[in-house]
Structures are given as structure tokens and as C-alpha cells.
């Protein structure tokens, strides 16, 4: 019994780490730039297929794909920013939202054309193995994915905290105009910021693809997870996002232990509603409390 509980908790923590990186890109783009990236999960899905294709065609291990995905999706993010976001940045928010919605549907349908709606899994050599840590049985993939996620979060946190660019990003999040006044190139920084957000989504997608089965048309579920992490943790704060991810992961494994699998999603949506009622602040309120 006690072992079971320990396993549930360990599982929850590992999943939580993955959810945290799924949410971190969304949270930073929203918190610093005020852009609601509805298409975030579409890029998570693309990340999974990136790893899937590399593994299938070139036999590249997902662990390596995780690091490859970061620069590749950074470039994708920069392109999306240049082509899409710069045009709607100053327009009313609904316009940007419609554009991102269009992008989400576009990526999803292109994904469906390329990979059909079949559910895929990445089966690496270690996928179905697990190891015994003390009394706890842990799946190898979850351990690896969790470790990668933790690595990314720490790197991100250190980047924001200790580098000049990171500081500039934080400054921009606190006050865009003041940042501009002291000489920060807000335009260039926004490009980097959005690129990083999508890069995070790509790498997060690789870890999600290692752990869960995926298909192009269920990516919206991942948006639900990422969004839940974001509203639970607030915006633009890596440490809080990590904490929120862990909470969500623990709740999921906890609920899954008692209820049939599909009802986990219902619990998720109830949680979403409850949190939205409790946290009464709008997006702007959360932005001002940034770090």
C-alpha cells in the first residue's frame, strides 16, 4: 500500500516535470509579450512527430532529438513571429487570437495530412523497461523524460536570471516601455522570446511523445494540460510554473489511481473551472505581478 502511494507520487512528480515544460513556453510568451499562443499545443505535437520521424527514419534516439528540437523549433518560432505576430502585435487582441487559431488549425491539418490520425508511439530500446528504486518501480522513459524536463527548466531559469538577455526579457515583462527607454531592443527581444517559447514547446513535445501516445488531432488535450499549468502557476515565472506542473502531475496520477482513465480529463476540466473562479485576476493582473 505504502509502496503504491510512493509509486504514485514518484510518477506524478516525473509527469509534473514534463507538464511544467509543456507550460513554460506558453507562460513566458503570454506573460512577457501578452500573446495568447493558442497554437502552442500544435507545436508540442510537431515536437513529438519530430522525434518520431528522426527515430523511425534515422534511428536517432529521442534523448538526442530533445536537444535537436530546441534549435529547430527556435527557428520555426522566429519565422512564425516574423510572418504572423509582428503584424498583429499592435492590433486588438481578438485579431491576434483569430490568427493564432488559424495557425493551430493549419498545423493540425498539415499534421493529419502527413501522419494521418493514427495514434503513434515512440518505442526506443528502453521504452518498456523499468527500474526498481528502493521499493518504487519507475518506468525508464519517464525517468529520462523527467530528467530532460528538469534540465530544460533549470537552464531556462538560469538563463532568465543570470544572463543579460534574460534580464532584459524580465525587464520587458515588467514594463515594456521602460525597457525600451533604457535601451532594450524590444523588437529583437520579442523575436528571441517567441522563438524560445516555441523551442520549449518543441522539446517538451519530444518528452511528451516519449511518455504518451500521440496523434495530430488530440493535441488540444495537451493545450489543456499546458494551460492548466499556466493558470495555476501564474505567468512568466519559471519556478511557479514548475510547482504548478508538479501539482498537476500529482493530481493526475492520484486521480488515475482511483478512476477510469478517461475521467482524468473531467477532473482536469473541473479543476480548470475551479481555479479560474478562485484566481479572479485577469491576464493583465497576473502580468503585473511578474517575478
Amino acid at each position: 500500500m505504502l509502496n503504491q502511494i510512493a509509486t504514485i507520487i514518484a510518477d506524478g512528480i516525473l509527469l509534473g516535470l514534463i507538464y511544467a515544460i509543456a507550460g513554460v513556453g506558453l507562460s513566458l510568451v503570454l506573460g512577457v509579450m501578452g500573446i495568447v499562443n493558442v497554437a502552442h499545443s500544435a507545436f508540442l505535437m510537431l515536437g513529438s512527430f519530430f522525434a518520431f520521424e528522426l527515430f523511425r527514419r534515422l534511428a536517432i534516439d529521442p534523448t538526442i532529438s530533445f536537444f535537436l528540437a530546441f534549435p529547430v523549433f527556435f527557428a520555426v518560432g522566429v519565422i512564425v513571429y516574423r510572418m504572423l505576430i509582428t503584424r498583429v502585435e499592435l492590433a486588438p487582441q481578438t485579431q491576434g487570437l483569430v490568427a493564432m487559431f488559424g495557425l493551430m488549425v493549419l498545423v493540425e491539418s498539415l499534421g493529419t495530412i502527413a501522419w494521418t490520425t493514427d495514434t503513434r508511439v515512440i518505442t526506443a530500446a528502453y521504452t518498456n523497461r523499468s527500474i526498481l528504486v528502493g521499493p518504487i518501480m519507475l518506468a525508464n522513459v519517464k525517468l529520462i523524460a523527467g530528467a530532460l524536463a528538469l534540465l530544460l527548466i533549470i537552464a531556462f531559469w538560469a538563463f532568465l536570471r543570470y544572463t543579460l538577455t534574460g534580464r532584459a526579457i524580465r525587464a520587458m515583462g515588467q514594463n515594456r516601455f521602460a525597457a525600451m527607454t533604457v535601451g532594450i531592443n524590444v523588437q529583437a527581444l520579442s523575436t528571441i522570446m517567441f522563438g524560445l517559447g516555441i523551442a520549449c514547446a518543441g522539446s517538451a513535445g519530444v518528452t511528451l511523445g516519449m511518455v504518451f501516445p500521440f496523434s495530430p488531432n488530440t493535441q488540444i488535450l495537451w493545450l489543456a494540460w499546458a494551460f492548466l499549468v499556466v493558470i495555476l502557476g501564474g505567468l512568466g515565472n519559471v519556478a511557479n510554473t514548475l510547482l504548478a506542473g508538479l501539482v498537476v502531475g500529482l493530481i493526475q496520477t492520484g486521480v488515475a489511481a482511483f478512476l477510469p482513465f478517461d475521467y482524468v480529463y473531467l477532473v482536469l476540466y473541473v479543476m480548470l473551472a475551479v481555479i479560474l473562479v478562485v484566481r479572479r485576476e485577469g491576464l493583465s493582473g497576473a502580468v503585473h505581478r511578474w517575478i
Partner: protein
Amino acid sequence: MLSVFFLKSGERRGWRAWAGIGFWVAVLFALVLYGLIGTRLFFLSTLGTVFMYIVLTQAWNILGGYGGYLNFGMVTFFGTGAYTSAILFHYFGLSPFLTAPVAGLTAAIAGLLIGIPTLRLRGAYFALVTMIVTLAVQILALNLRYTQGALGIYMQPLGLSPLNVERLFYFLFLGLAVLVTLLVYAIERSNIGGALVAIREDEDAAEIIGVKTTEVKWVANAIACFIAGVVGGLYAQRIMYIEPTGTFSFDISLNTVLMAVIGGPGTWQGPLIGTPLVLLVADALRVTFTSEVNRAIFSVVVIIIALYIPGGVMGVLERWRRRGRETSANDVSAPERAA
């Protein structure tokens, strides 16, 4: 709390406005006439679908177009209505024509459940939650006992010839489309419509001058969901068989957004223009492309419109009209408008 009164239209109606209304009335007459004498099943059924989508898009338009709160999951409420009707028929033998209002009410309750937490907040919460909730409802429909999961629910045939069935739904949806368009027209000219536009333009300012922003959004959303539910209930009877994947198809959500955005959100004419445009193009594309390619093309159209022509067709028309007025203007109001 939300007393409705109608605002006096500030500008005097010019001949253009009357010509516009005359045009729509003429179109309506032509459609009624065609419904009475037309015998081509394909045309009747396609037009019936156009009218159904006009109703949905007008409903979306109330909160999305005027209020600027985008519902990316219209199909959730549509599907809720469809399932309500189907379940009431399956277990109690009630005809969907009778239970359509009940279907609307269930959808409105679903709308309130989603709207109450999300519409109290500014920004994109509502859009995000409506988008992700569709899948949850679909999962529910797949797993609940009452909905018979993936098996779906069959409805009883009406006992009419196929042509007459299509004709029945042709007039049913045409009537609904006219009713809902009139409703949207009335809302546009009421203080609720004014409040919604104020919310879209500047919610803080709206609140300061005394608009009960949250309540207005709730009401607008509930009305929209009610309409979507009624349409869903009737759709269940029309299509005769509903199951979770098709009934909660994301395409329906995408279509409503697309139609409103192309036609011109926040105008009562927008859905009337956008819906036939999209459906005709979709029908033409369906011959050569698969539905995924179709969807990809439409999503590109959505992006292009959002980036370059945010007002849709109505926005373009309005700009032309203004330009025409400015070039011929010799009154004092011209520079004001230019600013």
C-alpha cells in the same frame, strides 16, 4: 438588471441603407419562392445547410463579433443540443421538433457553466477554454451510458419523401435564420449591443461608465449557446444518426469562426455574406481535395484575413462607402470621420 431598450439610430438612413435592406428582402423572397417550387434535392439540401450555418454564425456573432470574446468551440453547444434531443427521443420518444427548446436550454446551461468562470476574466481565457472543452465533451459522449458511446443514437425517420424532408428543413432553418438575424439586428440597436461593442473596444472604459460587463457577457453567451443548442437538436433529426466524432466535429467550430470572420464580425450582414461564400467554396473544393486539405486551405484563409483584412467583406464595403462619402463630401463632418 439588464433592461433592454432600443437606441435611436443616430444617423439618418440614406438611400444606401434602404437599398441594402431592400436587397436582403428580395433575396429572402427569392429563397422562399425557390423553396416552394424547387425540386433539385441537392440545391435544397445545400441551401438548408447554408441556413443552418447562418443561424450558428449569427449566434457566434453576438458575443464574438460585437463583444470581441471569441468562442472557438461552438460545436460543444451545438453537439450538446443534438445529444439532448437524441436522448430525449431515444428514452422518452419525444420528437426533436418538440424538444428543440429543451436542447437549447441544456446548451445554454452548458454555456453558463463554461461562461461563468471564464467570462469574469478579461482576455483570452474564454477562447482557450471553449477550444479545449470540446474534446472533454466528446470524451464524455464516448463514455457515458446514456449517449451509447461510439455506437451513437439513431433517430426515427419522418415518413416523408426525401425531397419533402429537405424542404421541411429548408424552411425550418430559413425561418430560424431570419429570426436570429432579426434578433441580432435588434441587439445591435439595443443598449446590450452598445454594451457589447463598448466591451470589445475598451472594457475598462465600459465598466467605468457603468456597463455591467460580466453580466452582459454572460447573457450574450447564454443566448448564443441557446441558439446553437436549438440548431443542434434539429440537426439531430435531420441527419438521423448522431455519434460523438461527427457531432462534436471541430470543423463546425472552425466553420462558424471562418464564416463570421470572412463576412465581417460585429455586423448583422456579415454571417449572411460569409456563410454562403465559405460553404460554396467548401463544396467546390470537396470535389478535388480531402477534408484535411480543405481545412488547411481554410485555416490559411483565416490567417490571411486576420492579418490583412480584419473587417472581412463588410469591413471592405464599409471602407469603400466611407471613401465614396469623403470624396463627395463638402460638409463639416468629413474631416472628423477621417480622424
